[in-house]
């Protein structure tokens, strides 16, 4: 029986059953090694603990139940090494060193074993009990590798389990292996990694000297000595900061040792140590792995020949992106209508059952405020979810990395590199996880530049605004191209801004990167669902919390204060509504900013709706819904789209969409920017810069468009 319980990042364990143990296993591995799939298979669930703002350590935790024993599983961030360059690497390393998990499960990609073992070797250096997983072993066998598990186990000194998490093979065996270690009293350590005669001689000398400092830092002395020879910045800083004269003299000793090593090898000590690690790995692989074919020339390579070719690479990329949006629209339409009808039906039921109907303030709050507000946003859920399905498919299939390669030439011109493309694509879903995804960029300037322009990647929350206005103002054949155009405008502006930032505030070289191209594979439905759900959930969470609260506040703002009875005398119902709106707080704010907003095509109603957009972009739609459906429950109901068509021109619609695209990053984005960049100046710069840019662009568009007579033509 398998049960799973995900607990928060801060808590260690939550008892699910009385017989639970304190046994903890940490999962580490390369980003493309299939770690998440394996984690889900072991814990039996597709749930994730999302990386969310303000959390520095984002280790996901789950519970594995096997043969009556329970084990806590900790999913460490996916990294290629345990150097202290990116925050993720430091988290993985310090988790193992400070939290002392009972066993580290090092997950390797069997189809590129040598590279994967580089991380495993660094786990071995930490001196913890380990299990090695050869994941994707089915793929490896197909491309001609035969593994002698027994020999490899002996050479590395740890149990080894071949798996294929994708096909759910080897999962029971892995659970057995974990349980074996749990039951056994003694916990054998992996073999000691050795680095050749010269380095070993230096380590032998330096290790006893490092003993005292190592104890202070609660680290293994040999590991501290090794890190010193590797010039590890984190260890050096801690020595300088915490160990006083002892630390200083240790650093001097290490410096001398480094000098001797570099003189002997004629190369930098960190290169020599990396080489020695690969020497150790190659030695093990030579004995334990037989390879039948010399080079891989599989389907994956043949796809790459076409997809990354100079001639076809960019067209294929653009066609895929076009279909991503096209499918989203075509498939989303029926589900959208269903939700729209359900929301309308729910509103009618509530108001007809409520004594006094929408004349009653509480009923109006519920129907017009909450049901209308949240419903107006949920209508677009199918489109957003479908977009995420498409993105998940491209990511899981391996295409995204090729997209990054194709985009690199272009990205480089604007001062970003290929890897920034991946957070950018996530940004089309939601800016918050996109900002989190920039953690994979190790250079701080690359990262800041990417984060600052990410809001221009039009997020899912702005999608409702476009679908509403596009569907209201433009005929079917124009819809997909206009939507595409808005997204492309965002991308173009992001490009310009990134280039500007790179030339001014954040100068630096962006072309120093290495990126893996994982082999193509058919995504599994489970994997796609899991990725889609992870992102969609954040959207729903926003709809059910931020948007409910904001809808209520906005309902009050749009309903109070009420106008005097005399003002409403001798007016038709429609005129009365208009007066009521005008006198409300929101209306007054809208009126106040109208003179500023008029030149860019906004009236006081749309200006009012912008106030809500700061809380979350989709509230713009919710608030337009409230503004236009107030007091209408007794009439034949107009849909929001019809009301918009009656009140605005297509040119105004374009300006509204473009202003919403560029201006005012939402509250959640700014909070995430603050926590990830560590300073308020970055989100504030983002807020001010983007809003100013939005104003200038829409000003030119609206005034130019009106002057050229597009107003009447469109």
């Amino acid at each position, binding site marked *: 029986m398998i049960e799973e319980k995900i607990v928060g990042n801060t808590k260690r364990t939550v008892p699910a059953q009385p017989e639970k143990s304190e046994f903890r296993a940490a999962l580490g591995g390369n980003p493309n090694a299939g770690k998440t799939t394996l984690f889900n298979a072991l814990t039996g669930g597709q749930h994730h603990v999302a990386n969310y703002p303000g959390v520095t350590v984002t280790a996901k935790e789950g519970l594995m139940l096997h043969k009556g024993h329970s084990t806590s599983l900790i999913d460490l961030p996916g990294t290629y090494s345990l150097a202290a360059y990116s925050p993720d690497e430091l988290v993985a390393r310090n988790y193992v060193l400070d939290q002392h998990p009972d066993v580290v499960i090092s997950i390797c990609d069997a189809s590129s074993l*040598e590279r994967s073992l580089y991380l495993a070797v660094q786990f071995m250096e930490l001196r913890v009990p380990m299990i090695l997983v050869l994941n994707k072993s089915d793929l490896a066998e197909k*491309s001609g590798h035969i593994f002698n598990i027994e020999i490899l186990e002996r050479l590395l000194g740890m149990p080894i389990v071949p798996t294929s998490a994708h096909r759910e093979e080897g999962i029971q065996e892995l659970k057995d292996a974990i349980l074996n270690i749990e039951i056994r009293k003694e916990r054998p350590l992996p073999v000691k990694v050795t680095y050749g005669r010269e380095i070993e001689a230096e380590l032998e000398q330096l290790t006893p000297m490092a003993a005292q400092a190592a104890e202070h830092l609660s680290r293994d002395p040999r590991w501290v000595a090794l890190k010193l020879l590797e010039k590890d910045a984190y260890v050096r800083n801690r020595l300088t900061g915490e160990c006083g004269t002892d630390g200083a003299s240790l650093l001097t000793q290490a410096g001398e040792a480094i000098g001797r090593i570099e003189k002997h090898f004629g190369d930098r000590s960190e290169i020599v140590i990396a080489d020695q690690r690969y020497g150790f790995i190659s030695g093990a692989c030579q004995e334990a792995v037989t390879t039948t074919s010399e080079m891989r020339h599989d389907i994956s*390579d043949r796809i790459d020949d076409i997809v990354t070719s100079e001639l076809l690479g960019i067209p294929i990329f653009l066609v895929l992106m076009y279909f991503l949006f096209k499918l989203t629209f075509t498939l989303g339409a029926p589900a959208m209508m269903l939700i729209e009808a359900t929301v309308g039906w729910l509103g009618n039921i509530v108001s007809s059952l409520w004594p006094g109907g929408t004349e009653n303030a509480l009923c109006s709050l519920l129907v017009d405020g909450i049901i209308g507000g949240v419903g107006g946003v949920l209508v677009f859920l199918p489109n957003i979810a479908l977009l995420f399905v498409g993105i998940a498919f491209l990511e899981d299939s391996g295409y995204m990395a090729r997209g990054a390669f194709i985009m690199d030439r272009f990205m480089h011109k604007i001062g970003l590199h*290929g890897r920034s493309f991946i957070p950018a694509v996530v940004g089309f879903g939601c800016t918050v996880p996109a900002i989190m995804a920039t953690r994979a960029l190790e250079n701080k300037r690359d990262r800041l530049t990417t984060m600052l322009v990410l809001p221009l990647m039009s997020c899912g929350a702005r999608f409702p605004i476009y679908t509403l206005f596009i569907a209201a103002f433009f005929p079917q054949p124009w819809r997909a191209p206009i939507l595409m155009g808005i997204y492309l405008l965002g991308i173009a502006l992001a490009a310009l801004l990134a280039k500007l930032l790179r030339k001014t505030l954040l100068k630096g070289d962006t072309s120093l*990167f290495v990126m*893996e191209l994982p082999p193509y594979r058919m995504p599994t439905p489970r994997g796609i669902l899991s990725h889609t759900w992870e992102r969609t959930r954040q959207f729903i969470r926003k709809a059910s919390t931020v948007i409910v609260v904001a809808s209520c506040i906005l309902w009050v703002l749009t309903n109070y204060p009420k106008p005097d009875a005399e003002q409403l005398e001798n007016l038709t119902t429609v005129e009365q509504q208009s007066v009521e709106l005008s006198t409300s707080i929101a209306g007054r704010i809208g009126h106040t900013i109208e003179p500023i907003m008029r030149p860019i095509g906004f009236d006081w109603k749309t200006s009012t709706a912008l106030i809500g957009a700061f809380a979350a972009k989709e509230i713009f739609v919710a608030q337009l819904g409230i503004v236009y459906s107030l007091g209408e429950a007794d009439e034949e109901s107009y849909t929001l789209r019809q009301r918009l068509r009656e009140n605005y021109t297509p040119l105004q619609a374009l300006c509204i969409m473009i202003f919403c695209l560029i201006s005012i990053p939402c509250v959640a984005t700014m909070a995430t920017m603050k926590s990830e960049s560590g300073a308020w100046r970055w989100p504030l710069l983002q807020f001010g810069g983007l809003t100013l840019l939005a104003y200038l662009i829409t000003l030119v568009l609206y005034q130019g468009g009106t002057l050229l007579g597009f107003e009447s033509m469109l």
Partner: protein
Amino acid sequence: MTKPISLKELGLNRTARVVKIDGGRGIVQRLAEMGISSGTELRVVRGKGPIIIEVRRQRLVIGHGMVPRIMVDPIEPATPDDKPIL
């Protein structure tokens, strides 16, 4: 042993062995964790700007700033058909 050339000068589909990496600790570490260190055999799969190489039976994109820093020793003799990447 022939004189080492940079990866930038190595032609498409040519195989070579890494001799030296010119760069700071960050660059060396990054390349090492992706499988590139001294003695590693690699093959250029696609060139110009960022290039794709095959190394340790995986494919990697190398940013074009990184390319000239990787010094290699070509394994096969150059044929007249081989053109430099740039």
